[in-house]
C-alpha cells in the first residue's frame, strides 16, 4: 500500500514518535536501574540544612536498637551463645520485632563465620532486624593495647578487615563500629599504654595529645581501608563520651559517624550541639540506658528505668534530622541492653553468676533517684536489661548446663515500644 503525502508526513512524524516511544522506556529503564543502584547500600546523607540522616536502600532509617549479648544466667562473657542450640536470637528477635527494634549492636563477631552469618540472617530474614558489627580493636589485650606498635596495629587492622570481607555482602549488615571506649586509654584512665616517643615527652598534656593522635590516626587508617573493600556500609568510631574528639577532628575524618557511649541520666545535655562544634559527624548513641535496681531502696524499680529510657529516646528523636528544635545530627541509638547479664558484677567468681547481684559497681549522679545509696554507689551493672531473665523455658534444649532462660519484658520494653509507635517529643518531667 502506497502512502499519501499526508500519510507520508504522518509516517515521518510517526517514525519520530515511534523512535521516541522506543527510546523513552529504555532511558526510563536505565534511569530507574541507575537510581536503584544508587539507592542500594547504607550511607550517611548530609542535608542542605547541615543535618545528617542514615539512608538504607534509599530510605531514611532511624536506628531503634539494642546492644545484644545474650549471656544466660550462671554463665559469663566467654559463653559461646552463637552456637547455642536454642538459638536465643530467634526468641529475642521475635520480642524485639514486636517492640519495634530494627537494629542490634554486636560488640565483636565470633570465630565461626557460619554461625555469625546465621545470626545476622535469621534476625534479618525473620524479623527485618539489621546488625551493627563491631570490633574491640584489641582493647582487652593483656597487658594493654599497644596502639603505638606497628605490629599490633597491623594485627588489629587485619582482623577488622577480615570481618568486613566476611560479612559485607550480608543484607542484614548495617555498618561497622570500631572500638567502644578505647579513647579513655589515651588519657591513661583505663588500659594505659605508651610508646617510646610518648615516653620521651615530659609534659603530660602533650603525652595525651600524642597518644590521641596515634589512636585516632590508626582508626582513620582502618576506616579508609574498610571503605576500599566495602563502600556500601558506613564506619563508626566508638567513643566514650566526647572525650578526645577534638583530636578525632584532626586525625579521624574518614569515619562516617561517631558511636558514642553516654550515661547522662534523663538527658544527653549539650551532647549533640557540642559534637557539632567539636567533630561535625552524625552520632549514633551506641550505648546508653539505665539500670532498674534502686540501690537506695534496695529493690527492683522498673519505673525508674522506664522513666530514664523514655526521656533518652525523646532526646534522640529531638535531635534527628529535620527537627528544628534539635541539632539534627543524630541517627538513632542502640540502648544498653537487651537482656540482663548476671556475671558482670563479679566476673571472676562463677558462683555469683547464678544470682543477680544487687551490689552497685559505680556511681553516677545523673541517675538521681537512688544516688543516696551508701557511698553514692547506685549503678547496678547486672540490671540493665530491657528484658529480665527467668527460669528456663520448658521445651528449651539444655545448653551450657541449662535451657534457654525465659525472657520477661520489663516496663521499659512497653514504654519505649509505645514511644516508637507514637514519638511525641515533649519536655520530660522530673517524676517517675
Amino acid at each position, binding site marked *: 500500500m502506497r502512502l499519501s503525502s499526508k500519510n507520508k508526513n504522518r509516517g515521518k512524524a510517526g517514525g519520530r514518535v515511534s523512535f521516541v516511544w522506543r527510546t523513552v522506556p529504555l532511558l526510563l529503564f536505565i534511569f530507574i536501574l541507575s537510581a536503584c543502584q544508587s539507592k542500594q547500600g547504607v550511607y550517611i546523607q548530609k542535608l542542605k540544612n547541615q543535618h545528617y540522616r542514615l539512608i538504607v536502600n534509599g530510605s531514611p532509617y532511624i536506628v531503634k536498637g539494642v546492644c545484644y549479648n545474650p549471656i544466660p544466667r550462671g554463665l559469663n562473657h566467654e559463653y559461646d551463645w552463637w552456637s547455642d542450640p536454642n538459638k536465643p536470637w530467634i526468641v529475642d528477635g521475635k520480642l524485639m520485632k514486636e517492640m519495634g527494634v530494627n537494629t542490634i549492636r554486636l560488640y565483636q563477631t565470633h570465630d565461626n563465620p557460619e554461625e555469625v552469618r546465621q545470626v545476622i540472617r535469621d534476625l534479618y530474614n525473620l524479623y527485618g532486624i539489621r546488625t551493627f558489627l563491631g570490633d574491640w580493636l584489641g582493647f582487652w589485650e593483656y597487658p594493654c593495647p599497644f596502639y603505638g606498635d606497628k605490629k599490633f596495629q597491623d594485627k588489629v587492622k587485619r582482623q577488622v578487615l577480615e570481618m568486613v570481607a566476611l560479612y559485607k555482602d550480608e543484607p542484614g549488615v548495617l555498618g561497622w563500629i570500631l572500638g567502644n571506649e578505647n579513647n579513655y586509654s589515651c588519657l591513661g584512665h583505663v588500659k594505659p599504654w605508651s610508646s617510646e616517643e610518648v615516653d620521651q615527652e*615530659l*609534659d*603530660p*598534656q602533650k603525652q*595525651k595529645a600524642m597518644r590521641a593522635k596515634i589512636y585516632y590516626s590508626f582508626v582513620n587508617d582502618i576506616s579508609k581501608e574498610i571503605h576500599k573493600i566495602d563502600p556500601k556500609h558506613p564506619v563508626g568510631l566508638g567513643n566514650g563520651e566526647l572525650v578526645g574528639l577534638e583530636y578525632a577532628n584532626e586525625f579521624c575524618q574518614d569515619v562516617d559517624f561517631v558511636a558514642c557511649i553516654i550515661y*547522662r*541520666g*534523663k*538527658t544527653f*545535655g*549539650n551532647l549533640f*550541639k*557540642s559534637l557539632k*562544634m*567539636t567533630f561535625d559527624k552524625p552520632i549514633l548513641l551506641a550505648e546508653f540506658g539505665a539500670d532498674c535496681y534502686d540501690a537506695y531502696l534496695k529493690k527492683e524499680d522498673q519505673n525508674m528505668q522506664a522513666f530514664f529510657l523514655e526521656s533518652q529516646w525523646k532526646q534522640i528523636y529531638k535531635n534527628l534530622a529535620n527537627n528544628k528544635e534539635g541539632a539534627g545530627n543524630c541517627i538513632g541509638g542502640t540502648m544498653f541492653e537487651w537482656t540482663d547479664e548476671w556475671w558482670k558484677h563479679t566476673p571472676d567468681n562463677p558462683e555469683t553468676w547464678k544470682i543477680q547481684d544487687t551490689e552497685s559497681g559505680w556511681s*553516677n*549522679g*545523673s541517675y*538521681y533517684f537512688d*544516688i543516696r545509696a551508701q557511698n553514692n554507689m547506685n549503678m547496678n551493672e547486672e540490671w540493665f536489661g530491657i528484658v529480665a531473665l527467668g527460669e528456663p523455658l520448658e521445651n528449651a534444649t539444655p545448653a551450657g548446663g541449662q535451657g534457654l532462660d525465659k525472657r520477661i519484658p520489663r516496663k521499659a520494653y512497653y514504654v519505649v515500644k509505645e514511644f516508637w509507635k507514637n514519638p511525641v517529643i515533649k519536655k520530660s518531667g*522530673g517524676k517517675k
Partner: protein
Amino acid sequence: MKKLLVVALALNFLVPAIAVAEEKAACPTEFVVYLDKNAKDNHYIPSGWMGDYGDIKMNDQAADNPHSGKTSIQFMYSAKKSQNQGWTGVYWLNPANNWGNKKGGYDLTGMTKLTFWARGAKGGEVIQKVMVGGVNGTYPDTASVEMGPIELTDTWKQYTVNLAGKDLSYINGGFNWSTTVDLNPEGATFYIDDIKFEADPDLKPEGKKQEAMPFYIYADRTTVANHFIPSGYMGDYGDLRYDGASKDDAYLGDTCIKMTYSGKGSQGARWAGIFWQYPANNWGGVDSGFDLSKATKLTFWARGAKGGERIEEFKIGGVMGEFSDSDSATIGPVLLNKEWMQYTIDLKGKDMSYIIGGFAWSANVDNNPDGAIFYLDEIKLEE
C-alpha cells in the same frame, strides 16, 4: 410585708458587701514572718540552724534600734567554725525544726515578693544569700528562690526577693539566710526586722539573667564577688585540706587558696579532688545553675609548693544530677611550676548556660606519691 421588703433590701446591700469581705480575706496582701517578738501575725520559727551552728547566737528581741516596733532579731556570728564547716545559716521553718518530714508548709499563692530590713553592727558584714523555700524531704517546698550576696550597711536598708511567677503553694521554709567564714573572717553581728511576704501585682517575674563578666570564683578570701563554694570533696576526701585564706605569696591581693593533698588514700580511692559548687554540696539536686553564657574562657593562676606536682584535671561544669550542668570543659594533666603560671580553659563553643560546678581539680596518688601542696588564685570566667 413592708418589714420583709426592708429585710430584702437590706440583704441586697449586705450580700455584695459580705462577698467583697470574703474576697479580701481570700487574697491577703501580706503574710508576716517577723514584725516584733511575740507579734501575733508572726509565722515560721528561726529553728533550722545549719553548718557551723555553734557559731551563731540569736536574740529575737533585740531592742537596740529596731527598724520598727520594739524589737528586731540580732544574729552574732563568731566564724569560729565550731562544726568545721566554714559556713552557717538559719532557716525559718514551720513548725520548728521541720525539714520537710511532716506537713507544715503555707500556701502563699498570690504573694509576689518577700521583703525584709537588715543592717550590720559596723557595716560591711556579708550575708552570702537569703532564700525562700528550698526545703526538701518528704513534703518538699514548691519553690526555691534566692538572692545575694548582700553587703550590709550600718543603717537599716530594705531588701527584696522577687517571687513573681513562682509556685508558692507549699512553703515550709519561709526565710533563710546563710554566710561563710571566708566572707566574714572576723565574724559578723547583724540585725533583721520586718520580714514579710507581700502581694505586688505589678511585679514581673525575674528572668534568668546572664551573668556579667568577669565572673569571679575566687579573687580574695573576703571578696563578696566570689561565687561557688569548694564543697564537693571527692575520692580520698580525708586527704584534703583547703585553706581559702593562705598568705603564702598570693598572686594578687591578700590571700590565695592553699590546697594540701596528703596522698595517704584515706578512703582507698587513690585519687582526690574538689568541686566548687552552687550552692554548697549541690551535686545536681538543686536547680541553681548560673548562666555563664558570656564566658569564652576560664582562667586561673596556679603554682606548686615544690614544682612538679601533677594535677590530672582542672575543670568547669560536668555536674550531673537531676539538674545537670549544660556542658563541661577541662585541661590537664598539668605539671605545676614553682612560680605562678596562668592557665586557661577554652570555653568557645561550649554551652555555659547552666553551671552548678564552677571549678574543679583532681589529682591522684600514682602521680603524687608523696602528696602535693599547691596554690590557686584569681579564678575567674572572662568574656
